[in-house]
Each structure stands twice: as C-alpha cells, then as structure tokens.
C-alpha cells in the first residue's frame, strides 16, 4: 500500500512546519495549508487520505473545513487538533465525522496513535471496498450466468417441437411457445398475461379436469400422455397428444406446465396407411377371388365335358358323374356368394333362447357320416352346467361347423397316415361365466407363418379347395357376438380352437327388456 498523503492545516506556521517535518521523517508525504480556505484548495488538488486540522482558525475554522472536506470526499480521515476549552467543538467535530482528535501541544505518541488508527481505518475501508467490489462483480457475473441460462431455457422453450404452455397458480398463462401458439391458433400476446385468458379458454374440458385433479391431489409427476383434439377460436380441430405437470415450490403449487404434440401429420399418415392397406387388401381379395372362381370354372368345364360324353355316347354313369360335378360346383359358387355377403355386411346377432349344447350336437350329427368314411373319430364332452341361454344359434352353428370342418381337413391333410385321427368337441363355462367351445384335432397342425395369416382374407392352405374366408367369417361372427376366438397349434401334433361367448341364461335374460342397451 502506498504511503498515505497527509494534509496539515493550521494558522500557526511553526506547528505546521513541525508536524510536516516529523511526519516526513516517519515516511509520510505531507502537504500544508495555513488557513481553512487554502486547506480546501490544497485538498482538492492533492487529494490526501488524511487531514490534520486545527479547530480554531480565523475566517474558516476547523469545523467548517471538516464539513466541506466530508462533502468532497466522505471517506477522508480527518483528525482534529484541539486546544484547551474546545470540548464542545471537539464533540461537534466528532459528530460531523472526524475520525479522531489530539490535544495541543501535539505529542508525537498521540499523533502516531491517531494516525495509526486513521491508517487502519483507511486500510479496512480499502479492503472492504475491494470485497464489495468483488462482490458486485460476482453478483454481476452470477446475474449474467442466470441471464444466460434463462435465455438458453427461453430459447429451448421457444424452439421446442412440442408446444409448451405454462400457467401461474391461478391457471393464467405465463408462457406459450410458438408451437403452442400454432396449436392454440392464437398469438402469444392474446394468451399470455391476459386477464380473461385461462386454461379453460383453451384446453379441452378433459384437459382442464386432468390438471385441476392433479393439482387437487398434489400430484408431483407428469400427467400420462393422452390424445384429444383442441378446437381453436376459428373452429379448427387439431388432434394432439398432451402431458404436463403441476409445478411446486416448497410444497406449494406455483403453476402448471403443459406439453403438446401436434398429431395432424401423424393422423394423416395413419389414414394414408390405412387407405393403402385397404387398397392392398382389395387387390388381394380380387386375386384370391379370381383364383377361387377359376377353380370352380375348372370343375364346371370338366363336368360339362363329362356330361357331353355321356350325352353323345348315351352313357348314364358319365351323365351322373358329370352332373354331380356341375352341381357340386354350383354349390361352391352359391356358398362363396353367401360367404361374401356375410363378410361384407354388418350383422347384429339375433339373440334367442337356445341350447348351446344342443347346437353342438346338431353340428356333430351333420358331419358324423363324413368323419366316419374318413376314419376320423368324433368325441364330445358337453358340460351339464350349460343350460338354455340367450344367444344367436346361427352364429354358434356356423362358427362351430366351420371349425369342425377345418379340423377334419387338418386330419385329412396330415401326411402321417399312421395316426388315429380324432376330433374332440368340448363345452364348458369358465371362471368369468363365458361359454367356451373347444374344437381339438390331432391333425397336421400349423407353422407360425400359417398361424399368423390365419385370420386374413383369402388365405387358404387348402389350395383351390378353400375360399380363404372360413376362419375370417368365423371370427367376424364371434366378434359380432361379443366373443373371442383363440388358437393353440403344434405342427404335426394338432390344433385347438377355443371360442368364448358371453353366456346369459334365459331366465336372467327374460327379466331384462327385450333389446339390451349395450352402451
């Protein structure tokens, strides 16, 4: 630290000179003045850190000097030199901010002590200034950092692909990024800090409920993403996905934030995908149909050739054989048409009181002969628990007939001629009171690929003999009856199909109005 500069003011020249000399010896730089006015002039020019001033001086006294200097630089240390009987002015001087006083005649020790104190004060003040300065710098730095971060966050929020909107605790908007503006269909200035704007003006009822409930429950995690549709003030629907959370500070809600994803493009793509899949399905349908119809035509053509031969050669056996081929293929056309009509029409099940076990028995009676001629054993196990129920008997009949026919084909198709083929048909009620019908065969089974394509249209493993509609129709019928169909299969070992249908006994059903409201 540089030596302190001391200004000495006294009207007695000898004292000034004496003090100046003794202080110089102690290593101080001194400047002098012989009256108050001159003192102020010198002070302004030299800017000393410490001022020693006599209190009693003509014209401008020490108190006056003190006042003026403090006005110029309040940090200057001013030591008052007092004589006898100056107690009052000394007190005034101290009140005005003098740092110390020494009595006349000035003693070296007293002066040294006073100067040391003044220097210590200056030093302390210097340190303090440094600290304060640093502190200010630090604060400035921190402020900059916070600003930088907040700018960064602002930028992040602004440039986010998701819409982001935040509210205060009264659900009034405080943040709304450009993507959110787009989704809301209003400008930032129309949303943020607007008196009449709150979440209810923009969010859907469900969204408002989700946020308010979360706030009520003190939920401190993101809301589950949900899909909904926002309607802007000009009536535009925007499909969106939203999430969000309630914001807390010290367990108190301070606001909410919502995130939005605009699903317009995704929805459009989804629609296009569905359309193109539909078109592909139409193509498949047409080619599948063409193939199947071609096979029927082959049969009809072959049949008519055989009939022609029978006619020209007058052979009754040929007439019979050919005619039966033709009739069979006419049957196939009419089945196909029937299937296509069923497939293309929405059909409501026609519920009536019927006995599921009875229908199962009927179906078995129908196929028993065919099974016998092909050495396939049919076993049935019907649960006596199952009573008359309100169901659509046609649905059960058709679905079951289809599954049993498939099971027989699976047996006939099995390359393993050693097997004793067997089809088991079982009925039961499961724990959730669903009617279960199982059709199990020990035929060829199927591989994974076949299993995957099983319920798709015009997929057939039966070459030209299947329409590829059977299982598809079965599934449709079962689903229209609010039921499910499932499969378990093992290549080479066999397949089990299980149908589950809602089962309501006739007695219960009759207590209800005839037409059940399903909603």
């Amino acid at each position, binding site marked *: 630290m540089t030596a302190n500069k001391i200004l000495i003011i006294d009207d007695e020249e000898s004292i000034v000179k004496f003090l100046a000399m003794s202080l110089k010896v102690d290593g101080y730089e001194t400047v002098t003045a012989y009256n108050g006015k001159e003192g102020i002039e010198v002070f302004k020019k030299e800017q000393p850190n410490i001022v020693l001033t006599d209190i009693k001086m003509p014209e401008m006294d020490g108190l006056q000097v003190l006042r003026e200097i403090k006005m110029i630089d309040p940090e200057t240390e001013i030591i008052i030199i007092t004589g006898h009987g100056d107690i009052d002015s000394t007190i005034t001087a101290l009140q005005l901010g003098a740092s110390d006083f020494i009595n006349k005649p000035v003693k070296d020790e007293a002066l040294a002590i006073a100067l040391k104190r003044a220097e210590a004060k200056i030093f302390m003040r210097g340190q303090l200034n440094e600290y304060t300065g640093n502190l200010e710098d630090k604060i400035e730095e921190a402020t900059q950092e916070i600003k930088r971060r907040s700018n960064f966050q602002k930028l992040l929020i602004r440039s986010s692909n998701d819409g982001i909107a935040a509210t205060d605790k009264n659900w009034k908007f405080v943040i709304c990024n450009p993507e959110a503006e787009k989704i809301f269909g209003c400008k930032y200035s129309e949303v943020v800090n607007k008196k009449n704007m709150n979440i209810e003006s923009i969010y859907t009822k469900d969204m408002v409920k989700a946020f308010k409930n979360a706030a009520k429950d003190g939920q401190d995690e993101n809301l589950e993403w949900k899909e909904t549709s926002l309607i802007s003030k000009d009536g535009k629907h925007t499909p969106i996905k939203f999430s969000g959370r309630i914001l807390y500070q010290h367990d108190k809600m301070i606001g909410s934030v919502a995130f939005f994803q605009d699903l317009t493009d995704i929805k459009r793509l989804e629609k296009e995908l569905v359309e193109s899949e539909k078109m592909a399905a139409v193509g498949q349908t047409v080619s599948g149909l063409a193939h199947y119809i071609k*096979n029927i035509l*082959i049969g009809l053509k*072959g*049949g008519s050739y055989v009939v022609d031969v029978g006619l020209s050669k007058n052979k009754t056996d040929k007439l019979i*054989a050919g005619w039966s081929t033709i009739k069979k293929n006419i049957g196939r056309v009419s089945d196909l048409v029937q299937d296509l009509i069923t497939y293309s029409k929405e059909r409501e099940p026609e519920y009536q009181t019927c006995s599921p076990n009875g229908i199962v028995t009927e179906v078995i009676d129908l196929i028993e002969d065919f099974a016998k001629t092909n050495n396939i054993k049919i076993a049935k196990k019907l649960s006596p628990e199952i009573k008359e129920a309100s169901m659509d008997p046609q649905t059960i009949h058709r679905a079951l007939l289809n599954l049993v026919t498939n099971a027989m084909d699976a047996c006939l198709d*099995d390359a393993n001629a050693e097997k004793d083929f067997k089809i088991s048909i079982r009925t039961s009620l499961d724990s959730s009171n669903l009617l279960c019908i199982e059709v199990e065969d020990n035929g060829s089974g199927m591989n994974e690929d076949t299993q995957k394509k099983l319920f798709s249209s015009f997929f057939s493993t039966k*070459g*030209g003999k299947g329409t590829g509609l059977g299982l598809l129709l079965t599934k449709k019928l079962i689903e229209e009856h609010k039921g499910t169909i499932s499969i378990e299969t093992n290549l080479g070992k066999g397949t089990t199909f299980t149908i589950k249908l809602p089962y309501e006994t006739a007695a219960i059903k009759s207590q209800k109005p005839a037409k059940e409201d399903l909603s």
Partner: protein
Amino acid sequence: MNKKVLVVDDDPDVRTFIVTVLEENDFIPIVAHDGVEGLQKVIEEKPDLVTLDVLMPRGSGIRLYRKLKTDLSLKNIPVIMLTGIALKSFMRSQKTLSEFQGEKVPAPDFYLEKPVEPEELVDAIEKSLN
C-alpha cells in the same frame, strides 16, 4: 395295345374329367387319390404314363415326382404334371429339394396348368409316349 395311364389327383371332379378324357381317347385309366396311393399304384400297375397333381394330402406331387424320377426302375415312366400351381413354383421347390438331397431331377415331360383342354392333354400324352 391300349396304354395305361395313372391319374393321381385328390379332387374327384378332376379325376372324373381326366378319366373320361382318357377313355374317350382309348387309354386305360387308373386312379389314385394321393401321393402315397400313387406310388403304390405305379409299382403295382406299371402304367405307361402318369398325370400328377401337385397339391395333395399325404405325399404331395412334388415328393412323388422326385421318387419316380430318382428310382432306376421307374424313372423312364413319362410324367405329366397337371396342376393349378405355376411351373416356376414347382421347379423352385424341386431345386430346393435337389440342393437339400444332393440329387437333381429332370423337368417333367409336360407341365400343364389347370384348366386343361382335353385336346391339349391328349396331345401331351401322345407326345410323351412316342
């Protein structure tokens, strides 16, 4: 002497038709319902020619064809494939089997896709037999 032709097809309508065509053209038809029965009839009846379907239960036409063409005593019997399956698919599956079994089989003498005209079939049979 009239030639014996074995018709291997699981579809009764196709059998009736082919048998009638054969009878009308002075061949002696024999029938088999599937691949297994087909092989048995070939051995028992020693036909002069075989018409063979591809998609059949119990021993497909693909397998029976291989058996006929890889058996020294049977490989000279001409075979006409008569099927709804495209020749390409048939040859592809034969190629796969050839690679798998390490034994090549020649392409069939005739490969007719259903529906087949009676004249077309008779023509193919006569060409194969000469």
